[in-house]
């Protein structure tokens, strides 16, 4: 018999039968000597069993057709067509300049180059991040870097956001009015997706970081040494600014 003191955690682990046999025996012996505590622990055990019995029938119900996993694996669901139309409509609006795309920054005058980049990044985000079938063209990071570097005719470095909990899903080359751009997509454990867009800048070759937002989307854009970057994600993600700073830092060490 050990003389370790009995803890509340031990008592709950006793209820869950999660203790080593030796410790379990010690708890049993303790409860024999403490009837009040024993009563409470017995009640917890009964209530645990009651809850299990009450919920058991749900797990025994036949699964509805919407939860047919084999079918989901065969043919992952596409977004409902109404949503696709909504995205198309949003795109038309933002191309027409009516989408309410707003750009602001303390030291930044909303000039052509960076504002266009921000818009391109948010368009890419809206189209590809919502795609559950094929959000990215290439998942292999080495292949991806080679492809986008060839198309952009300059070395492109993949931002690594793993320390912030975002994994690279992959990326693709996307068309813009200013030539090809590289899009990288990331997600975290919650399935939250972010998009980074980068391309050579024709104007605004160096521009301080500016926040922008429109609709459900928000982001930060900047340009260093002729290359522009824009990070876009769902509005309300607080970590966007530190993530943007991290990407900027990594890009400067090319």
């Amino acid at each position: 018999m050990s003389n370790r003191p009995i803890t509340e955690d031990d008592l709950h682990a006793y209820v869950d039968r999660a203790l080593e046999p030796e410790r379990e025996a010690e708890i049993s012996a303790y409860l024999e000597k403490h009837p009040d505590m024993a009563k409470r622990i017995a009640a917890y055990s009964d209530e645990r069993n009651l809850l299990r019995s009450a919920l058991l029938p749900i797990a025994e119900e036949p699964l509805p057709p919407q939860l047919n996993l084999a079918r989901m694996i065969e043919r992952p669901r596409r977004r409902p067509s109404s949503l696709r139309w909504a995205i198309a409509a949003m795109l038309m609006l933002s191309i027409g300049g009516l989408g309410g795309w707003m750009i602001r920054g303390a030291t930044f005058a909303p000039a052509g180059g960076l504002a266009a980049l921000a818009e391109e990044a948010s368009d890419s985000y809206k189209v590809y991040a919502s795609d559950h079938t094929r959000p990215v063209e290439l998942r292999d990071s080495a292949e991806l870097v080679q492809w986008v570097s060839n198309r952009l005719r300059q070395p492109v470095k993949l931002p690594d956001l793993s320390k912030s909990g975002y994994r690279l899903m992959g990326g693709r080359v996307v068309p813009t009015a200013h030539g090809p751009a590289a899009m990288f997509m990331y997600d975290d454990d919650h399935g939250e997706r972010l998009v980074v867009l980068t391309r050579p800048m024709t104007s605004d070759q160096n521009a301080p970081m500016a926040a922008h937002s429109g609709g459900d989307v928000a982001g930060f854009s900047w340009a260093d040494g002729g290359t522009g970057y824009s990070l876009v994600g769902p509005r309300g993600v607080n970590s966007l600014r530190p993530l943007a700073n991290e990407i900027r830092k990594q890009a400067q060490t090319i």
Partner: protein
Amino acid sequence: MNDMLRLVEPLIPALRRYARALVRDHAAADDLVQDCLERAVIHWEQRRSDNPRPWLFAILHNLAINQFRRATTRGVHVAIDETNEDAFGQEAAQEQKVMYRDVMAKLAKLPHDQRAVLLLVGVEDLSYADAAKVLGVPIGTVMSRLARARERLHQELEGTAGQLDHNVVQLRNKT
């Protein structure tokens, strides 16, 4: 992917049970499970551990929490379904049905973080470490939430919590 079908399909009933007990609305719960499975299909290659069980519960839990959060920010009252009698199967005796309905109603009164830990540990048999992963909190937090949840459910079932509420209402009425 065949691998996925073999490993994940047997877990679907438990995922449904967790979702239903957490959000209480039958259709909303199945939608969450569907969403969870679709995400799992897409991210199957990116999962980090060999045991898909905590991973799937984590995806499902996060989806449910996001839904709770959206409902709160919108200021919408989350509708709590009256427990459907069919949910308890036909074979359960009448008296048992009453008890089952009672425990479900009392469970629904718990804050959702307490409800979650009670379900993951007590019903779904996740280890404390796995429950911590699902909830994204340290094990110590799992243990303290579990203790609070068990005590709260116990008081609700004994009717003592109800009496406390009653007193509060009376005091308010007097002022």
